[in-house]
């Protein structure tokens, strides 16, 4: 009888371990999809913000096409920086 009891407890432990693993995997999948959504908008938003700032400054100083171009490029750079930072964070989480 004691053998049977032993087997029962061992089965229980193994089952709970398996369940934990499955749960973790499902958790991770959601996080990945969330990250994918995050990166796309991060890139675009910075470009949009940069362009808007350029447009406003152009109207202020009356230098119509110059600042909008410059700030569009700054915005693109900021977008890449954003994505870079987010990716770095993800790498940190993965390890």
């Amino acid at each position, binding site marked *: 009888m004691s053998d049977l009891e032993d087997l029962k407890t061992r089965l229980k432990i193994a089952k709970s371990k398996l369940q934990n693993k499955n749960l973790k995997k499902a958790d991770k999948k959601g996080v990945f*999809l969330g990250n994918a*959504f995050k990166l796309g908008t991060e890139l675009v*938003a*910075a470009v949009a913000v940069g362009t808007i700032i350029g447009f406003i400054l152009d109207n202020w100083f009356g230098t119509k096409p110059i600042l909008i171009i410059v700030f569009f490029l700054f915005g693109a*750079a900021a*977008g890449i*920086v954003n994505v870079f930072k987010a990716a770095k964070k993800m790498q940190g989480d993965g390890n």
Partner: protein
Amino acid sequence: MAANPMQQFEVHRIGPEIKISGIDLSFTNSSLFMTISAVLITALLLFGTREKKLVPSKIQLMSEMLYNFIAKMISDTAGKKAKPYFPFIFSLFIFILFCNMIGMLPYSFTVTSHIIVTLTFAIFIFIGVTILGFVIHGFKYLKIFVPSGVPIVLLPIITIIEIISYLSRPVSLSVRLFANMMAGHTMLKVFGGFVISLGLIGGWLPLSFSVALTGLEILVAFLQAYVFAILTCIYLNDALNLHH
């Protein structure tokens, strides 16, 4: 049913027109669904915590799991210092989640599919976090615009890039939620329209697609609320623990 897939996003007045000094404050379908989700959340949490049993009932389990989920998320991303901000992040997450989920019901209205709603959330968070950063760190908070180890020549350019990157936070935060909700609901309506126009013979294909999309949309509804809350935590973390 309306054939126009964008008609579901129309805001219209319910009841009398209320105007206070030129600002239209009438009760709309948008406000109705916000109220419904707020009432549902309150009911869930009140009923869930009314009987504090050791072996929880289903509703108690649900509210306790929600609490644990957010508490763990905050401690994972923003550390122990962020504990005082738990109520704010919890309400934010659960409100967005309920708005998204109620939007999945037929004939309902998705509050979060309007950019003005999500942008208001995002700007509120942005201003709050910025003020918090300045209150805690003083003018040292400006250091987040000046990364360490950058050559002097590049410093002005990098600072401008960092400022734009900082300013883009509320935009990306709000656009993500709004675009996901709006695109998903439009797509559901378009495929629903295909079912009707293709009729009994050809309608099965878009119908099956529509079923799959509904599943995806429920996932997106949860995920977007989660992403919104987790990004709020990350921004909060940047303001609380200054390190660059």
